[in-house]
């Protein structure tokens, strides 16, 4: 990637040389060529896909079943209403998962024999809940807990389903955090400890900030995945975006509501991804010296 910078410093007496002007003209030419090639290949690919799909024998029927404007209009308000549940679940579960995951990861990195039980418990937890299929975990919690008929324990499928999501996802996220913590070079810890910081302080002020920054992309991955899995609470009867779509679809045998729900989910994740990309890129720029090779 080439950036075309105009001379940042207009020094007295300095004028770009012929050589520089020729070089920049050449680079601009290359950029134009690359852009033209990219645009052409995008157009060609798009056209081929379009012709392939619209030319297929079942296209008119599929179009009616999956892309009906009428059903899209009917489904959108209900899907959006269901989506509100997904969003609330995502916000609450996401926060809980991050906190619990971080605690688990830190517990696993504690040193010293005193902490053996803590380490062992955290390890057992991640091993178990990472291996347990989410759907089974959900069924056990959502139907198992109410079956116990305990006094004062909720039977609300949304709360229980959310709990099950947190159980599974915190195990995933703990491993992501742990990988980040272990990727920080031991010399950083040594430097922090040598300044007199306690083990906990070294973790809090030196290791974790570096670790968390490195694992932002995989964390986002898990959060997007969580966002989609919030739909699974519908197995207990809570109406989320997917379930709302399903209700309409099964009434009229038209699948457009599913397509609408799918697009809504995609539309949700894109701004989140762009935001984290932007934040990490900005952090990199502030840190790096010189150019990238």
């Amino acid at each position: 990637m080439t950036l075309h910078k105009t001379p940042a410093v207009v020094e007295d007496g300095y004028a770009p040389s012929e050589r520089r002007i020729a070089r920049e003209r050449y680079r601009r030419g290359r950029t134009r060529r690359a852009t033209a090639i990219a645009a052409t290949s995008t157009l060609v690919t798009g056209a081929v896909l379009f012709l392939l799909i619209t030319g297929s024998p079942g296209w008119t029927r599929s179009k009616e079943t999956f892309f009906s404007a009428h059903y899209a209009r009917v489904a959108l308000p209900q899907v959006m209403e269901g989506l509100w549940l997904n969003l609330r679940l995502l916000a609450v579960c996401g926060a809980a998962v991050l906190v619990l995951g971080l605690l688990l990861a830190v517990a696993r990195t504690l040193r010293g024999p005193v902490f053996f039980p803590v380490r062992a418990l955290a390890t057992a937890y991640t091993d178990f809940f990472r291996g347990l299929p989410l759907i089974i975990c959900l069924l056990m919690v959502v139907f198992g807990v109410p079956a116990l008929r305990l006094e004062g324990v909720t039977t609300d499928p949304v709360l229980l389903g959310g709990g099950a999501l947190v159980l599974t996802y915190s195990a995933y996220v703990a491993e992501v955090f742990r990988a980040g913590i272990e990727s920080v070079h031991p010399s950083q810890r040594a430097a922090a400890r040598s300044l007199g910081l306690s083990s906990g302080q070294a973790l809090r002020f030196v290791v974790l900030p570096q670790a968390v920054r490195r694992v932002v992309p995989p964390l986002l991955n898990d959060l997007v995945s969580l966002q989609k899995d919030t739909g699974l609470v519908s197995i207990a009867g809570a109406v989320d975006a997917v379930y709302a779509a399903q209700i309409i679809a099964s009434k009229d045998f038209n699948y457009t509501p599913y397509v609408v729900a799918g697009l809504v989910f995609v539309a949700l994740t894109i701004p989140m991804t762009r935001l984290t990309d932007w934040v990490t890129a900005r952090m990199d720029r502030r840190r790096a010296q010189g150019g990238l090779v």
Partner: protein
Amino acid sequence: MSTAAGTAPVLRMEAVRKSFGTSLVLRDVDLEVAPHTVTALIGASGSGKSTLLRCANLLEEVDDGAIWLDGEEITDPRADADAVRRRIGVVFQAYNLFPHLTVLQNITLAPRRVHGLSRAQAEVQAGELLERLGLGAKADEYPDRLSGGQQQRAAIVRALAVRPRLLLLDEITAALDPELVGEVLGLVREVKEDGMTMVIATHEMAFAREVADQVCFLDAGVVLERGTPEEVFGTPREERTRRFLRRIVEAGRL
């Protein structure tokens, strides 16, 4: 360039200009490095020594001016940067050894993956270099288990293993204690004996005086003074060079 091969400069810079944001780091720098000679770049921190080396290795793109390696313009946007870098070795201040590879693997990486040597060939060659430079016993150690001096020597061997045409050394002793400095500089002296062409950015004035054929004093991105070590250290013409050298002498480093 009509001069006969052998005397034509290995590296030539003409009016090289480079700025980062609003700070102008190199201002119309000219430099010629003849084959089998050592050029020492001296000057205060921030005077542009490191940037000059990074430009020569195409780690930075120059704003203006041109750089030639063996008569070929490497700052031409059509030049193949990887091919240029294959002919230039670089040793960094912070060693930059790969911590996940042993010393031997660090050294054989480029010969095997870039220059197409077989593993056996590369290892024999690396083994000989390590042996000769006193690191034979450390071939299978990981960098983090070596002392600073050993790491820096391993980094020099890594740069030499591809038989570069030109070696750039960027303040390679700045992170070492005096005892280890001697060990690393001894190695550089040996490399010079072998006829390697080098450009060295350094704060070790005594070393620069002894080993260099040409000394360039950089000040605020300009080569303020250049000449033989006798000229620059003995009879500096510029007031600022004199002031810089006086400070160095006061610090007991010359």
